[in-house]
């Protein structure tokens, strides 16, 4: 059935030095220009693969103790999707990946059954026979009636493209972790409820039994016990034992270490939480007044306990709970939502996904320029590289004041993640643990330590010293410590440990019984405790808070930002001196007569044969301070491929080497892309398809515009140089269409909405030109219309006027070359979305030019004190003309964009800033068809 190599344990490693040399020569497909006249929907990669399903889907399976592995549901829930694909068989495969997390029972040192708080495991699995590759996410849910109290489940993302699974592993892992966390949160809540009921039953049973025993005692005065009485006594004893056991379980589940997700996708049911919290307040009083366990039963009066028979029914007789019952309905639907989101996100060709991810990540990094032509709200919506950041990111976040304000433990603890070694951390909380933690650290890594601590916690559940928090500390920081290789890893491809903070994924498959297979522990694995805390308030729940008060040491990382500030202060003074050095144009070439090497290189790449396939983007290690791209970020903006290649090759190498291990792997990486059977057009990773549709329509309209109007160039120039363009017409639909078409050329002035007004019927004022750069204006014959026209002629110096009815344009002359490339009326591009991308790419080029122009110090300020202003001006003009290769009016475009960049950068976020109107006194001309 499944051989070990089938399970591709996934580790991501970067071998920076050797990759460049070991990179195999490029596959031929990539160097050939795409066939330009391909028909609609033609996809060069779409070949019929051996897979039996048409598109990627998500499968949830369970290893049922009654019937074995069985598929539960697929997403999308459509029979067509899985086609002839044998879900049962595949469930068997994915579930039979040896998953050892379900260790429950009586450990040697403990008297009671114990729950293990197991981490999820994440594996990649390939089945060449089925042509299916899967990311498999195992998780266990608690069920009181199940064997060992656990039910193993798994969620699998199944795709025909192994490349997609490998390259999107981290993203998949992060997204699935969220789904899993949601399920588990609901499950813990349900489990606690179940335990509570069970306890009531048991208590009731005990009372009944007790009474019966008493009755028997009274009834019989012979002085010796009948067998009946002894039986009853035994039964009573076993019930009492059971009570203790269940109480212990309850404590365990309640004490599950938790931390709050900082920005989780799913939201724990808010109103419920609020209610629960109120309950906690009330119950705390109860706890104080009457210690003991009686209060456990006080506040769920609705449940009527049942008598429990001594012998429970055989497990095969009863019906197992469904997934929906296991988790709360709310959490179950949340999970489904999340899974649907995953399905949508990873739909489509891997090439498309990667390109999209790369461009998004790069765009996000370009915080200085990305507002100009990009939809910033779209970038903000769902930061795609959140996953990569991992704990390091959280640590950084913790530094920026938002977290510091909240003194609640969970977040502060997360900031401890910045500690580099676990050894530093341990003394903070767990003095008693010192001896213990020394040893495993040598052999295993922080992971097993984590497990140790969990055990420790379980055993010592009542001790006030150990709390969920301290475990979190260790758990969080292990990512920072880097993973040391353990013996158990020997069977896997040996990789050097990944760079700290970048990769949170390690493979760890140990044979030892108490070690959990944990491939990944992402910070998203948050545990929401309120759910149980609510129903079972006890001293234990309060511990974390009590700890907070005492644990002054925990806040030691706080000074770090302060120190950083101090450094900043120093650097402030230094940087004034460093201004010259930092400028990318040295003093030697103040006149910019020699072209910069980068620019030259870029120019020859401009004709655009893609030589390197898209690869997953990984942000540079060196964090960008203040979100401003440092020099390597600038390089990244201009030469993304070069910057990336080292990361990329890393992952490529990796996937190759791991696949080489696969004995039955038939396809090689280079052809892996061709196995993609996803014939649905890639609709995007976009969160909102509406935006995509808008782009398509705008692109289509723009294409029509540039073909239809010979004076499209000066019109577009007006928009790019910040001169308001008024589209005048009687027909609202036509005007709006034109405005939509032209809107893709409008630079954003900051803020979220493009400065575009689709339809105005009243006379325009100066204020309107400040606010809007593209206006659709109604032409009427009424007296009001006269006013409208009068206003137009009055402010004509600020305006270009496109008359949609008479097909004329009144605007300044344009003699540059940028717009010609942007809007070539003989373009071969046929599809709106393609044209939109073409426009975006040229606008991005313009942005980078504007960026260079804006941030070159010597272009704007004199090198020395005595340098006259004229020489700065001439240097500036030289730079624009010679270095950036701009001619005539193109200079004005870049200057305008540069002004926008400046304004955006220097604007204080607090004050909105007055919108200002810049204009030129240039003559306008009338263009006619």
């Amino acid at each position, binding site marked *: 059935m499944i051989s070990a190599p089938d399970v591709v344990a996934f580790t991501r490693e970067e071998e920076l030095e050797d990759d460049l040399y070991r990179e195999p020569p490029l596959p031929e497909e990539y160097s050939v220009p795409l066939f330009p006249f391909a028909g609609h929907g033609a996809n060069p990669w779409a070949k019929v693969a051996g897979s039996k399903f048409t598109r990627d889907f998500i499968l949830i399976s369970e290893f049922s103790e009654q019937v074995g592995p069985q598929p539960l549901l697929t997403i999308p829930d459509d029979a067509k999707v899985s086609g002839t694909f044998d879900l049962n068989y595949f469930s068997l495969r994915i579930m039979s990946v040896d998953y050892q997390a379900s260790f429950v029972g009586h450990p040697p040192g403990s008297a009671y059954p114990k729950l293990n708080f197991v981490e999820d495991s994440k594996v990649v699995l390939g089945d060449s026979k089925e042509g299916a590759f899967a990311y498999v996410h195992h998780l266990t849910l608690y069920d009181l009636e199940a064997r060992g109290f656990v039910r193993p489940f798994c969620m699998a993302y199944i795709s025909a493209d192994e490349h997609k699974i490998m390259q999107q592993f981290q993203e998949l892992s992060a997204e699935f972790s969220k789904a899993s966390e949601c399920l588990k949160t609901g499950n813990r809540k349900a489990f606690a409820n179940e335990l509570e009921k069970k306890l009531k039953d048991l208590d009731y049973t005990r009372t009944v039994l007790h009474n019966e025993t008493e009755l028997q005692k009274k009834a019989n005065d012979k002085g010796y016990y009948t067998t009946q009485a002894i039986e009853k006594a035994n039964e009573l004893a076993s019930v009492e034992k059971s009570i203790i056991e269940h109480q212990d379980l309850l404590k365990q589940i309640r004490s599950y270490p938790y931390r709050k997700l900082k920005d989780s996708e799913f939201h724990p049911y808010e109103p419920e939480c609020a209610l629960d919290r109120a309950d906690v307040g009330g119950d705390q009083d109860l706890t104080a007044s009457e210690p003991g366990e009686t209060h456990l039963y006080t506040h769920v009066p609705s449940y009527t306990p049942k008598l429990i028979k001594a012998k429970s029914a055989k497990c095969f007789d009863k019906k197992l709970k469904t997934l929906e019952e296991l988790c709360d309905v709310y959490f179950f639907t949340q999970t489904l939502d999340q899974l649907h989101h995953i399905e949508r996100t990873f739909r489509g060709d891997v090439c498309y996904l990667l390109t999209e991810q790369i461009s998004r990540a790069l765009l996000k990094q370009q915080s200085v320029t990305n507002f100009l032509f990009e939809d910033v709200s779209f970038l903000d919506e769902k930061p795609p590289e959140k996953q990569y950041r991992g704990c390091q990111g959280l640590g950084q976040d913790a530094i920026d004041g938002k977290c510091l304000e909240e003194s609640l433990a969970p977040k502060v603890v997360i900031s401890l993640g910045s500690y580099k070694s676990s050894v530093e951390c341990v003394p903070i909380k767990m003095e008693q643990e010192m001896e213990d933690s020394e040893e495993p650290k040598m052999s295993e890594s922080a992971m097993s330590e984590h497990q140790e601590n969990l055990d420790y916690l379980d055993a010592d559940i009542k001790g006030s010293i150990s709390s969920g928090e301290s475990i979190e500390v260790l758990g969080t920081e292990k990512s920072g410590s880097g993973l040391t290789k353990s013996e158990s890893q020997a069977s896997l491809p040996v990789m050097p440990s990944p760079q700290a903070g970048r990769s949170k994924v390690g493979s760890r498959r140990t044979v030892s019984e108490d070690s959990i297979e944990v491939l990944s522990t992402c910070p998203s694995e948050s545990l929401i405790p309120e759910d149980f805390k609510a129903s079972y308030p006890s001293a234990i729940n309060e511990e974390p808070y009590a700890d907070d008060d005492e644990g002054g040491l925990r806040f030691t990382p706080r000074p770090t930002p302060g120190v950083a500030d101090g450094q900043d202060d120093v650097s402030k003074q230094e940087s004034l001196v*460093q201004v010259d050095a*930092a400028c990318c144009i040295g003093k030697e070439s103040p006149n910019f007569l020699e072209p910069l090497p980068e620019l030259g290189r870029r120019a020859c790449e401009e004709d655009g044969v893609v030589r390197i396939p898209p690869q997953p983007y990984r942000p540079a290690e060196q964090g960008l301070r203040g979100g401003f791209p440092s020099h390597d970020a600038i390089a990244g903006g201009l030469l993304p491929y070069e910057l990336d290649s080292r990361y990329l090759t890393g992952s490529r190498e990796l996937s190759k080497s791991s696949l080489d291990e696969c004995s039955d792997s038939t396809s090689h990486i280079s052809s892996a892309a061709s196995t993609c059977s996803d014939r649905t057009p890639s609709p995007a990773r976009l969160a909102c398809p509406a935006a995509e549709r808008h782009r398509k329509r705008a692109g289509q309209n723009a294409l029509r515009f540039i073909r239809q109007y010979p004076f499209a160039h000066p019109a577009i120039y007006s928009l790019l140089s910040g001169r308001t363009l008024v589209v005048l017409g009687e027909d609202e639909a036509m005007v709006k269409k034109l405005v939509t078409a032209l809107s893709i050329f409008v630079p954003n002035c900051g803020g979220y909405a493009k400065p575009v007004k689709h339809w105005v019927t009243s006379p325009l004022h*100066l204020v309107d030109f400040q606010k809007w750069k593209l206006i659709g204006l109604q032409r009427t014959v009424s007296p009001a219309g006269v006013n409208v026209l009068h206003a137009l002629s009055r402010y004509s110096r600020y305006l270009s006027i496109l008359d949609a009815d008479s097909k004329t344009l009144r605007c300044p002359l344009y003699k540059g070359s940028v717009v010609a490339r942007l809007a070539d009326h003989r373009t071969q591009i046929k599809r709106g979305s393609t044209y939109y991308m073409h426009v975006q790419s040229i606008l991005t080029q313009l942005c980078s030019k504007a960026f260079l122009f804006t941030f070159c110090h010597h272009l704007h300020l004199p090198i020395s004190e005595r340098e006259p202003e004229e020489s700065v001006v001439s240097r500036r003009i030289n730079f624009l003309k010679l270095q950036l290769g701009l001619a005539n009016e193109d200079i004005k475009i870049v*200057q305008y964009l540069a002004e926008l960049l400046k304004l955006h*950068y*220097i604007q204080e976020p607090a004050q909105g800033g*007055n919108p*200002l109107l810049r*204009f030129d*006194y240039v003559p306008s001309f009338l263009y006619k068809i």
Partner: protein
Amino acid sequence: QKSSVQTIGEEQIQNPYTELLVLKGHQDIVRFLVQIDDCRFASAGDDGIILLWNAQTGEKLFELHGHTHKITAIAPFSSSDVTEEKTDLIITASADRTVIVWDCSTGRQVQKVSCFHSTVKCLTVLQRLNVWLSGGSDLCVWNRKLDLLCKTSHLTDAGISALVELPKNCVAAAVGKELLIFRLSASNNGSEGWNVLEVKRLVDHQDNISSLVSVNDLTFVTGSHVGELIVWDALDWTKQASECNFWDFSVHPDAQPEIKLSQSPNETSVQHLTSDDECVFAAVGKGIYVYNLQMKRVIACQRTAHDSSVLHIEKLPNRQLISCSEDGSVRIWELREKQQLPAEPVPTGFFNMWGFGRANKQANQAAKKMQENTPMYFLELVGDLIGHSSAVQMFLYFGELGLATCSADHLIILWKDGERESSLRSLTLFKKLAQNGDLQLKL
């Protein structure tokens, strides 16, 4: 047609104002702009609100509420006391018959006086004496603490329309057609006591005096609604020279008497006067006239500088002149010399202060003469600023910082030199970069 307004195309090379900021805040006509210091100014108007602005950034600093009616006069009053810290105050008078003193650094009301019998129409600060004067139906003298030092008796119901400071502790006040000279003198009783005495009453103007401006220590100028301009000696208050009724046709021989008769008084009214050491610049009707004090004649003029009345003019240091008008535009003029032509002697009939008929005839002759020998100077339009949608009431020239204009459309527009602003922004940008530490190389 010569009478049509001179226009300038869209290409204005000499016009430095290529950037503008619209300042919103007023709810009614903005009539007054007053400079507080190098980078602050106050605006006030019919909504009774006074707003303080930063002239560089256009940021609104304070909103001063206190008046219930429209503002009628505003004057800056910076304390000159060496002992005290320099505080910038502004005094505002309103139609609600109150005067309020405001502190510009805090935006607070310092003091309010409401004992006036009529609306105060003008305010003048005599820095030298550290007192300020309010002119309504009477003239009051106040000190910094807003103690009433002295006042005149009730003058007229119409009230004082303009006040100007003259040497020797004198002030000239325009009251209707009359020009009254008052002298302030310390009373014998105590140091704080002042007396104000009317010392002279000048009745040379035929119509109401509409503008009054001091040229230098020796001269001041008045203009009236019918277009008379009189130059006065500031020391003995005698008439040095005068011009009247020539504004509309002297330089324009084709003008018909009918046209003249049909002209409304507004067309000839001297709306505003300004001066430098050599010349007096008068906004008369729609036109602008430059009167040379030395030559005692009009050396240049633009008969129809705007489409409607010019409301305010100001001379810039660089031989430029800015005018604003009811037509909503602001125009920049440059006074240029015509080198090739020899200077013309002053035509004799030019300074006629007598009746209309004769003046007309003589002026016509003079005009013909002028026509034959074009004046030595001419005003060239070098740029116009179009932004307001209604009459531009006033403007304030801030030198490098730009130009603030206020208008009946409730807006204030800050016009700026785009080039300069751009380089300033670059400077700010690199300062901010340095602050953020983004300039350090990250290798």
